């Protein structure tokens, strides 16, 4: 049995959905993208002053045509991420603007080298089923930042990629690059390597850029992930239930636009819902209510059987300290128990602003614990205990049993050296290190063991050509050294 927990009574889910449908039909949703507005209008939505009133029947038809499951594939063409059901997978957080310098503790502006370092570490950690375009590369022109990040990750990783476009026409160029990597349009469509986050602006607002992205992705049959970001008490109702209604309304309206563009194309009910901190005005990613919003929103999606996504494991701490471990550890468990298909956010500090390879390593330990938890308690032997008792005799030395040797690896998660379970003596003799120190050592080990995955020369050339062309238009003659 995969353990899971729920926060919403079936009756409450019904009320949430009833209000979500009422919001999109009565209050309506701002749709600034002409292509999206045209699709809605042609399908019978009333559009007045840029606000689309989407009938419940239209939205329900769209929800029906969404595929209940689909996979993302690695470079070898094997399925490596499954969206749907209660599968739980993790990927690092996206689009940070700072990175934590592990030596000076400075939060620096991010550059290509920081992205490469993060990608290498995430590539080496099996806890991350997918990569993300983790940080913004500040030394390249902003207009091509989305395409360039994807290029950097593709060069350094075989894993599927969670990414996103920054501009109305960003997605087609990025899809073009993925097609080069996959060997063509049909190949990418059959085995998508990436999924694109698309963010509505709270409350209930599809900007030109987000709306166009939804339509482009659906038509290209490249998976889209709706990232609804209610901010309870600021950009959405202060109550968790009220914010879950808004989250549902944003996801449903986005799915409607997406499915009208291409019925049956893969799309995920996702988001980064959070509360709003009434003291600092930030979005506390480590708050328990933020975790609750993510789990509950996924539960609403599951009432339709839809694939899910959430944003967890980001911490509000500024360095790798107890707060970082506590917040991200709790979030990993909650997301896993919520059965959220893709949980983004590992590695993040300072709300959503800062990334850290050392935190990725620490979070991998929390994720490993959560993954062990999901295995549950299993009856691995014919009798649970009687046969083993019969074998050990009076001494009761279970360490000698072949069963112990055979089964302990399945039964026990073995943490890396980041987690200290050694004796006091050995801790004292190895320099009285703390978690941060051990995480730094582990990052260096992983970087030392990393090997860049092979990529056919002509494929790399093809991808590079696309980026270089965009760079020239943006006024950058030479790409940074990779």
């Amino acid at each position, binding site marked *: 049995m995969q353990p899971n927990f729920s926060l919403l009574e079936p009756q409450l889910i019904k009320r949430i959905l009833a209000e979500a449908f009422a919001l999109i039909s009565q209050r309506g949703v701002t749709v600034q993208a002409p292509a999206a507005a045209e699709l809605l209008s042609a399908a019978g939505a009333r559009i007045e002053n840029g606000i689309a009133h989407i009938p419940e029947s239209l939205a329900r038809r769209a929800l029906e045509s969404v595929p209940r499951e689909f996979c993302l594939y690695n470079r070898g063409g094997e399925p490596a991420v499954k969206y749907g059901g209660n599968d739980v997978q993790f990927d690092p957080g996206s*689009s940070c*603007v700072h990175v934590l310098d592990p030596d000076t503790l400075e939060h620096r*502006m991010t550059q290509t080298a920081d992205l490469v370092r993060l990608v290498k570490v995430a590539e080496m950690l099996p806890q991350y089923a997918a990569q993300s375009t983790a940080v*913004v590369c500040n030394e390249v022109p*902003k207009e091509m*930042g989305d395409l360039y990040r994807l290029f950097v990750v593709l060069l350094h990783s075989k894993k599927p990629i969670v990414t996103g476009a*920054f*501009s109305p026409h960003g997605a087609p160029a990025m899809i073009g690059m993925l097609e080069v990597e996959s060997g063509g349009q049909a190949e990418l469509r059959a085995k998508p390597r990436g999924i694109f986050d698309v963010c509505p*602006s709270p409350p209930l*607002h599809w*900007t030109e850029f987000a709306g166009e992205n939804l339509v482009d992705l659906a038509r290209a049959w490249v998976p889209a992930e709706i990232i609804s970001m209610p*901010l309870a*008490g*600021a*950009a959405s109702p202060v109550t968790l239930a009220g914010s879950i209604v808004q989250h549902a309304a944003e996801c449903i309206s986005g799915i409607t636009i997406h499915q009208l563009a291409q019925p049956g194309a893969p799309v995920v009910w996702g988001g980064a819902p959070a509360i*709003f901190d*009434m*003291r*600092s*005005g*930030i979005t506390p990613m480590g708050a328990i209510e933020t975790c609750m919003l993510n789990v509950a929103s996924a539960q609403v999606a599951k009432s339709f059987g839809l694939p899910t996504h959430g944003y967890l494991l980001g911490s509000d701490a500024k360095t790798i300290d107890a707060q970082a471990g506590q917040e991200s550890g709790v979030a990993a468990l909650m997301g896993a128990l919520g059965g959220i298909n893709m949980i983004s956010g590992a590695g993040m500090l300072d709300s*959503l*602003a800062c990334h850290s390879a050392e935190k990725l390593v620490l979070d991998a330990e929390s994720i490993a614990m959560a993954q062990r938890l999901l295995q549950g308690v299993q009856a691995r032997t014919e009798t649970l205990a009687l046969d083993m008792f019969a074998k050990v005799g009076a001494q009761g030395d279970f360490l000698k049993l072949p069963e112990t040797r055979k089964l302990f690896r399945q039964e026990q998660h073995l943490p890396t050296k980041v987690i200290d379970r050694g004796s006091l003596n050995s801790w004292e003799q190895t320099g009285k290190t703390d978690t941060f120190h051990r995480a730094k050592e582990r990052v260096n080990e992983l970087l030392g063991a990393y090997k860049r995955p092979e990529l056919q020369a002509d494929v790399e050339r093809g991808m590079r050509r696309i980026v270089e062309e965009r760079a020239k238009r943006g006024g950058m003659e030479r790409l940074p050294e990779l």
Partner: protein
Amino acid sequence: MRDELFESMKQSIVDGDPDRARELSQRAVAEGINPLEAINRGFVLGMNAVGEQFEQGEMFLPDLVLAGEAMKAATAILEPEIQKVGAARETLGKVVLGTVKGDIHEIGKTLVGTMLSASGFEVFDLGVDVPFENFAVKAKEVNADIIGISALLTTTMTGQKGVVETMERHGLRPRVKVMIGGAPVTQSWANEIRADGYGKDAMAAVTLAKRLMGK
């Protein structure tokens, strides 16, 4: 009697009650109380109290925002009365605020506006998705001391540079100070685009604005 009214005015701000603030302002007008005095001896003291308690962590953003709303309700009635008698309310300075073109994020900018008003600045909020030119035009129109440019996205923060350049073209620099804010914004970005400063949150924005005014 009058002191009691002033005390109620202060309390209406502390309670974040715009209806009450409006009602008390109307009463003051009806009773012929000097409107400037009503603001300075009544409502402003409420704003100060809220500001202090916020800094001490005893009040929170919703308290602050609703206090600001109550203050707005009061000044909407009292300002025209002050102008009628040919006087002017003394402020710390005039600030034009807006979220830059392409960006529709409202919360941070509005909070800064509330905090600045609460601290005694006169704030002109241009809203969101504001074209570069509008900052300069408004700054000229109201003879602003400071403009504040907000951007929440890494993609739109380049617009802050655009606004600074537009201000320079209009010959408004360095007389009109520029402060910037938003999640991706840093001091080094402020330096790079020749802004006068960056505030990491609404409280820091107030400190910065006061510093830019030499106060």
